[in-house]
């Protein structure tokens, strides 16, 4: 299989980089090559955050994702900035509790996920990112389910062990949508 290019984008504070780290670790747990590249510098503090994740069976060239196979958009500027870059046949996940705009491309698969609202409704503040990740797993099978669970063990530090169950719950909500 060739390289899977994933682009995750949204506001700072939505856990975009963490979402990317989870996806990257899941790839690693599946014994695949991975890269994770964040946007950095003042733009991070100015509001937008995005993160490129590549998962591949071969050595990865550029870790910068220009044309994603998978786009997760968690705010409108991110959707508008990247929607035309998605490869034909690609997958787009839109947090429709934040973005009320529809995607007009016919050649890609778009899923509208009310992740932020679902997180709030289920007492999972700040875990809309994990709901999106659960949905991403279901629709793209970018990693194995077991790898995602192992990634969680790697990414949630022991001092935040209480967060583990909440993250699992959020992933489950996403994967059952």
């Amino acid at each position, binding site marked *: 299989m060739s390289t899977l290019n994933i682009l995750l984008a949204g506001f700072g504070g939505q856990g975009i980089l963490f979402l990317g780290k989870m996806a990257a670790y899941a790839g*690693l747990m599946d014994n695949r*090559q*991975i*890269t994770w590249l964040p946007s950095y510098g003042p733009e991070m503090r100015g509001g937008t955050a995005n993160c490129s994740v590549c998962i591949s069976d071969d050595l990865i*060239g*550029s*870790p910068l994702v220009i044309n994603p196979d998978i786009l997760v958009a968690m705010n409108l500027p991110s959707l508008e900035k990247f929607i035309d870059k998605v490869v034909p046949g690609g997958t787009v996940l839109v947090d429709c509790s934040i973005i009320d705009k529809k995607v007009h491309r016919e050649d890609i698969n778009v899923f509208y996920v009310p992740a932020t609202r679902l997180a709030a409704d289920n007492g999972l503040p700040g875990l809309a990112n994990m709901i999106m990740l659960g949905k991403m797993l279901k629709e793209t099978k970018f990693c194995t389910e077991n790898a995602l669970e192992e990634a969680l063990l790697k990414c949630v530090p022991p001092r935040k062990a209480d967060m583990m169950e909440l993250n699992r719950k959020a992933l489950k909500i996403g994967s059952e949508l």
Partner: protein
Amino acid sequence: MAKVLMKGNEALAEAAIMAGCRHFFGYPITPQTELAAYMAKKMPKIGGVYLQAESEIAAINMVLGASAAGKRAMTSSSSPGISLKSEGISYIAGSDLPAVIVNVQRGGPGLGGIQPSQADYWQATRATGHGDFHLMVYAPSTVQEMTDLVALAFDNADKYRMPVMILSDGMLGQMMEPVELKTANATDCPIEKPWAACGHRNSRPHNVINSLYLTPQALEELVKKRYEKYEVIKKEEQMADEYLTDDADIILVAYGASSRICRTAVNTARKEGIKAGLIRPITLWPYPAKYIEKHIAHAKAFLCVEMSMGQMVDDVRLCVNGRKPVAFYGRTGGIIPAPDEVLNEIRKLTGGVK
């Protein structure tokens, strides 16, 4: 040891500690700050020194001091900060002191930008300060290499008593990749340093660390001796990685971040039937001339790709010396070239013919 995901900057810092570095002097600058922050967190727990200096100038001179005392010392910065360190690097070279300097390059000149760049090649290989001298320069292209090369950098800095630079960039510094940290020397002074100014303890004549020689003959003699050492290094220490070069018509030459993009472009070109290959210099000084030399006979053309307006291409041309055409493609200002752009250049060189 299992692979872990780490940012290049943090992995390099951890590897430096594993290589015995216990003295780090820094100053904040994007995109290398994670390296200093990692040191600030770790050093106090292992009895090491992390000190935030008042400037890059002070930081490199603290490295000079710690190294003069015989310790493995390091500093890191990004492009504008390396300009400030140049003075100290020249003194370190002129005093025959080991030191490791990390440059996580960003766009320039001036304050430039903060996105990845390779525009400090000339500075690293030609003129990191005044005078006749060289640094050894290593150019990692993966997070794993960021860690592997730092141990080698410390070892060679000690072995040859000279400053060694890790020339990285914002992309490698900021990105995470799986990395396996290999245990290296755990001591901060793995070899004897009888020259160190560590206090003579009334047991030997005083040691002097110095770069001042007011007699021209004495200075010339010393510099020439240093250049004899450089010749040994040129023979012994050239490093490069080759990819699909054996039968290649078009040989790309690229280091660090841009070499990764070139590898992708080479793969795509091969699928199109173009015999492309890649030489990836790992040492930028000494320049891995012998790796280029062995392909000059069969290659039809060379293509140097950099995240600059064309700096390393000078060295490629010096190696090829007019025997084959050498083309250049670059993006600058913090832009990472896309594999398709490089592929187009490869196609141009082959005249579209397979």
